[in-house]
């Protein structure tokens, strides 16, 4: 809402404050002032001039040579405006004038003829083109005939308006009117308010003889008032009114339309003017549209209606879409003489449905949607008639023809001084509360510390006690509230075990060299089907997609963190950041329904991606590119830190390198995978060799038990034995290790692979794997016989399982 301070001054005295101070007071009390603007930048030395004569320039067809009386002198001015004519009163920038944009006016010669100034358009005086009345849009502005010659033109135009822009929250629709803003400012500054006087001289003719009103949908149209005016002279509205409209961002059209817009801004009540003679009947019937019914609105677009839309009809066909837009047929034009004026209350939701369906949001629909003041509807109609009679020469027929089932009652809200103070933490007295209510112009009955407040109908936001707490607090001043800390019982805040573990894992991976990412949860349908870990795939029936995505890129909820993470990695690669090491801990979304009806399951996954060099030390010529074992090593250390035992098995997973991917298990449970991205997928993402992992973090949380414990530091020495086994090259080391662990018994505390060999010293198709075995008994020193027995048992078992032989 744009509020011109010049206009506001008509209702409240604000001269004691600077615009900035006023803006701050308004902001602090409840409505945010989003900006203070000057409607047009100041011009100097621009006066009203009278065009005494206007002739063609001798050497230029499009220019005119004008003699312009500017009061104390007559200036010869060359003017190129198409609408210049003898007898006009115009704005003249005299030599030495400065126009907005620091445009300085000097004496000049135009095609050999002396020109002593410039005749100005509104745009040249700083008015935005979209607000300039159409008839002046391509030429100079013409003052009314009675304007005084020689007067300061910017004063007459009143263009040095200061406008404050209010950012209204949805509850404060009362401030969508100048009067609403005036009430607010009056309460804040504690100054009186002056309301417009709507005295009216009626003719003897009675409106009821010329129109009838019938409402068939009173639940969405509880009040409809029809007023009739005769003998309207359509023409420009008075200059001051046009200026007010322009300052509020509305382009002046003609006096009839401008008056309805002026009242809309003043009262917050939208009105509609029909050409009475083109209305098509003398009965107004308001009803729900029938399905498929059509209306051509005054923007000349045919609209197909449905049963949820409300229409004004002439008893036969729609003439207006209620609260949204009038019909083209009954539009007021230059030839209109009789006007049927509508002042009505339309239900907000009904108006919203129509304005949304046809994308016709307007000043009017906006106000109906937010709710207009029931007690101002009729009055606004009367106010418009008064202005039509004053500024359009109209004769107002007597009476308002109306349908009226409106609830005019004021809501009663009871408040208590002590309860207000309890809620605010203040000690405001009952007298102060009474004073605040008086400033707000709220009626109330006081009984000691109890107030029964009648919330005025303009303030539809006030319904319950808490609403009044806010009213009292904001006028009392939020700055005056004390600072306290909660006095309730102290409770120890803290992280849950799971939250602590999440932080542990993050710090661990960061210490291991990974940078945390935050990627989008919404991805493309195609990417949502990539890198799906087998255990996720088993639990998923379909992906979860938005009903109305903004783009295909962000249409589907992720089933893996990896696709968006790899997109980020590729983003870095494209910017010469070739070494990427990422992790992310976040939710994926899976559903067991073909078509989603319930909330999808949200599973926490821990994912990572690594590409480029893992270690580089240039001057020592050391380079270690990321490989499978870098990624796996990070996971192994993480699992060790979480005390989780996992196993790895070769696996084929979508979008992964078939030979370089391991599925991860805890016992028989699948918990994720680690491996290289499939070269084809790497290429599609714009990546080089990239390794990723994706782990079920919920399951890790579930099985993790961080019981404090202490393992005795062994007092007896450990014994180590090495064993090199020759097996078929297809036998996985992990499988051999598992058999060794099983066969070796409890005394084997650790098994480490220290060499893998394949080559000329071995038979083709064979490989040798060398393990170090560490034996220990916490209770005593081991004997050679015990170790030897275990060693032999291991040899027997690996021979049985894999045909393994000791390497000679």
């Amino acid at each position, binding site marked *: 809402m744009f509020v011109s301070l010049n206009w506001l001054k008509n209702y409240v005295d604000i001269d004691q404050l600077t615009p900035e101070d006023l803006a701050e007071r308004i*902001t*602090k009390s*409840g*409505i945010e002032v989003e900006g203070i603007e000057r409607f047009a930048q100041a011009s100097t030395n621009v006066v009203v001039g009278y065009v005494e004569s206007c002739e063609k320039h001798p050497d230029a067809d499009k220019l005119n040579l004008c003699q312009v009386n500017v009061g104390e002198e007559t200036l010869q001015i060359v003017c190129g405006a198409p609408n210049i004519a003898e007898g006009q009163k115009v704005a003249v920038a005299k030599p030495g004038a400065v126009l907005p944009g620091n445009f300085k006016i000097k004496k000049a010669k135009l095609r050999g003829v002396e020109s002593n100034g410039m005749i100005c358009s509104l745009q040249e005086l700083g008015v935005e083109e979209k607000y300039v009345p159409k008839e002046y849009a391509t030429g100079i502005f013409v003052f009314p005939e009675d304007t005084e010659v020689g007067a300061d033109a910017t004063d007459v135009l009143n263009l040095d308006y200061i406008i404050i822009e209010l950012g209204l*929250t*949805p509850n*404060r629709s009362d401030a969508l009117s100048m009067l609403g803003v005036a009430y607010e400012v009056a309460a804040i500054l504690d100054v009186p308010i002056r309301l417009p006087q709507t005295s009216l001289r009626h003719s003897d003719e009675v409106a009821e003889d010329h129109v009838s009103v019938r409402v068939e949908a009173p639940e969405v149209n509880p009040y409809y008032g029809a007023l009739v005016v005769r003998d309207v002279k359509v023409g420009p509205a008075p200059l001051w009114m046009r200026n007010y409209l322009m300052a509020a961002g509305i382009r002046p059209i003609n006096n009839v339309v401008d008056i309805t817009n002026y009242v809309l801004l003043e009262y917050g009540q939208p009105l509609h003017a029909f050409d009475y003679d083109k209305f098509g009947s003398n009965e107004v019937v308001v009803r729900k549209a029938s399905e498929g019914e059509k209306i051509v609105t005054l923007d000349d677009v045919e609209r197909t209606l449905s049963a949820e839309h409300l229409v004004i009809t002439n008893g036969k066909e729609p003439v207006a879409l209620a609260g949204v837009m009038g019909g083209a047929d009954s539009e007021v034009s230059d030839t209109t003489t009789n006007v049927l004026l509508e002042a009505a209350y339309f239900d907000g939701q009904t108006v*919203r449905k129509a304005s949304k369906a046809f994308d016709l949001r307007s000043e009017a629909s906006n106000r109906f949607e937010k709710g207009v003041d029931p007690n101002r509807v009729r009055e606004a109609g009367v106010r418009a008639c008064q202005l039509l009679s004053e500024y359009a020469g109209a004769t107002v027929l007597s009476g308002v023809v109306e349908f009226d089932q409106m609830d005019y009652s004021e809501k009663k809200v009871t408040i208590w001084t002590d309860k207000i103070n*309890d*809620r605010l*933490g203040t000690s405001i007295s009952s007298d102060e509360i009474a004073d605040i209510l008086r400033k707000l112009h709220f009626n109330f009955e006081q009984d000691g510390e109890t107030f029964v407040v009648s919330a005025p109908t303009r303030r539809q936001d006030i319904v*319950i006690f*808490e*609403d009044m*707490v*806010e009213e009292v*607090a*904001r006028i009392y001043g*939020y700055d005056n*509230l*004390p*600072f*306290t*800390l*909660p006095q*309730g*019982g102290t*409770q120890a*805040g*803290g*992280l849950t075990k799971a*939250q602590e573990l999440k*932080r542990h894992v*993050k710090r661990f991976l*960061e210490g291991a060299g990974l*940078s*945390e*990412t*935050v*990627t*989008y*949860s*919404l991805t493309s349908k195609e990417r949502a089907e990539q890198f799906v870990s087998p255990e996720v795939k088993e639990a998923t029936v379909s992906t*979860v997609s938005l*009903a*109305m*995505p*903004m783009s295909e890129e962000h249409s589907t*909820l992720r089933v893996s963190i990896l696709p968006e993470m790899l997109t980020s990695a590729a983003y870095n690669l494209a*910017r010469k*950041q070739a070494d990427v090491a*990422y992790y992310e801990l976040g939710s994926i*979304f899976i559903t067991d329904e073909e078509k*989603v009806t319930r*909330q999808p399951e*949200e599973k926490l996954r821990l994912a990572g991606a690594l590409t480029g060099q893992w270690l580089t*030390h240039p*001057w*020592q010529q*050391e380079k270690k590119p990321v490989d499978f074992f870098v990624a796996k090593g990070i996971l192994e250390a993480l699992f060790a830190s979480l005390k989780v035992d996992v196993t790895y098995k070769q696996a084929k997973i979508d979008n992964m390198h078939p030979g370089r991917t391991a599925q991860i298990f805890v016992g028989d449970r699948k918990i994720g995978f680690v491996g290289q991205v499939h070269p084809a997928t790497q290429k599609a993402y714009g990546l080089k060799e990239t390794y990723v992992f994706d782990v079920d973090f919920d399951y890790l949380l579930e099985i993790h038990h961080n019981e404090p414990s202490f393992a005795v530091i062994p007092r007896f020495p450990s014994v180590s034995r090495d064993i090199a086994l020759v097996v078929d090259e297809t036998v996985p080391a992990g499988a051999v290790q598992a058999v060794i662990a099983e066969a070796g018994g409890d005394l084997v505390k650790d098994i480490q692979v220290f060499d893998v060999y394949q080559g000329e010293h071995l038979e083709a198709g064979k490989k040798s794997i060398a393990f170090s075995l560490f034996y220990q008994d916490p209770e005593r020193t081991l004997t050679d016989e015990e170790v030897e027995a275990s060693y032999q048992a291991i040899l027997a078992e690996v021979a049985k399982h894999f045909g393994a032989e000791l390497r000679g």
Partner: protein
Amino acid sequence: MKEQLQALEQEALAKVEAASTLQELQDVRVAYLGKKGPITEVLRGMGKLSAEERPVIGELANTVRGNIANAIDEKKAGIEAEQLEKQLAEEQIDVTLPGRPVAVGGPHLLTSIVEEIEDLFIGLGFEIKEGPEVETDYYNFEALNLPKGHPARDMQDSFYITEELLLRTHTSPVQARTMNALEDKRPVKMICPGKVYRRDTDDATHSHQFTQIEGLYVDKNVRMSDLKGVLDRFAKQMFGEDREIRLRPSFFPFTEPSVEMDISCKVCNGKGCSVCKGTGWIEILGAGMVHPRVLEMAGYDPKEYSGFAFGMGPERIAMLKYGVDDIRHFYTNDLRFLKQYHQA
């Protein structure tokens, strides 16, 4: 015999003196002090001596041995020190060459901000709660006093999946879920950080996905001045002890009264500048006293309980605190951005 021993001593000491390696010293030791050495040889002839001479010569022999041994030890220490000196000189490196880089990662800036805020509120006795990102219409809107048809829950503003399911537009539903889940309706003091989603076209100041931290305190006799006190603590810890806060009336369907909290502009100290658009204040968060309908729907009697709630955006806080100029930086994961915030 005496002369013989003294001559041997002189001869040995001269050889010790002349030795330049540990091996030569060892040779001297073996030659003069070994079991087959000349001193032992001399002592073997002691039997021919008189009873008076024998102890004198014995003592002299021991002295000679001792002197030779000492000289050898001394010389040895000298040679060893010399060798070490030489070795150290050879081992010198150029300490100005760069060290081997250590792979260093770190948390995302949003995580750092969220954890900082979490820790701050944990210190004030708050717990941390989490909730689903795909919410029901009921919890996202209705339970927060946004009934169906309310303008603030426009389909155009939210990512709906079905008519009843959508990506949460704020983390406030976690409040309602937490209160609902408490059978005994005891006081609640919680914050809930998380991802939220709105139908915004991504640009420098909008992101279809962003982060929110919602806070809630419900108890008997919670006052608006408590909200002001807690927010003041928050602002001072987060932005500096010299920051002032100001509350302005605002509107949210789930709080009444509702406020916006501003902090005094750090750039101009409240005098007004381009950062604060001349007002001296910068908007940080929205808050208010929990609406009685919200309490009621969660099973708390609004006659008995009151509370406050607040909601803030870590992206906005990060942008203000670190001068990040484009919200998209938080989601492109450019390492040049991420690594700026890995230092303590």
